[in-house]
């Protein structure tokens, strides 16, 4: 079973002490069918997070919950928006060279035909990584005077191809 490189987008709204933060993450992860027979989603960007499930969708859902709980933990310890933003950026920007390498190898295997995207990943949206620039945005929503429903961002998972 090959490893599958994916991209994802997650948006969270986090309450802090006197601030409200909108955190939008566009990240990368690697799905691996491990010897425990679960699908593990290893974070690549950010690289210090992982979770698992019997299906990729379950693993992605659990990773989102773990990520949300991390943001809650950071908010508990950050007395200002600036401190919260700094800690979240630090988490996102910490490099994980090994997971980056494994992600790139998995993408190369798919593009070169050494591996193909099979079930259950064949039903997930395919996308080119260059169309999914990675990054994190932390916005002080308490300062924003304009809110519209069009600003809502659904959680999205795409297979890199």
């Amino acid at each position: 079973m090959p490893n599958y490189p994916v991209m994802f987008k997650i948006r969270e709204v986090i309450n802090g002490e006197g601030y409200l933060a909108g955190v939008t993450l566009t990240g990368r992860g690697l799905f691996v069918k491990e010897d425990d027979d679960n699908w593990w989603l290893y974070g690549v960007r950010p690289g210090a997070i992982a979770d698992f499930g019997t299906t990729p969708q379950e693993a992605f859902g659990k990773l989102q919950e773990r990520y949300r709980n991390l943001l809650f933990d950071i908010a508990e310890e950050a007395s200002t928006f600036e401190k919260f933003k700094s800690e979240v950026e630090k988490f996102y920007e910490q490099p994980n060279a090994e997971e980056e390498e494994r992600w790139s190898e998995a993408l190369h295997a798919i593009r070169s035909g050494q591996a193909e995207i099979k079930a259950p990943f064949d039903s997930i949206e395919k996308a080119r990584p260059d169309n999914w620039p990675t990054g994190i945005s932390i916005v002080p929503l308490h300062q924003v005077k304009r809110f519209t429903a069009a600003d809502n961002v659904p959680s999205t998972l795409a297979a890199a191809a």
Partner: protein
Amino acid sequence: MSQTVPLATVHKLLESCAAGHTARNTTHAIKVTYNGKEYPTLPSFNNVEIGYIRSMVRALEISKECANRVIPNLFKIPKVDKGQQK
């Protein structure tokens, strides 16, 4: 089927393979620091799934050989043929 190891074994791995590390409980997880890096999402359950441990070892760049001595077969490490060594 899940594969877990006791949380005490994870701490033993850190003590054996990550000298100078710190580990403290947050509300939702354990935050581990080592080697100038942080792994703030380690579950604090009594038994920890091995995938989380693999993720932490990679993220903190802990020696896999050392980790395997504490938790056998945590990682598959290719054996180098001595004849191929320079």
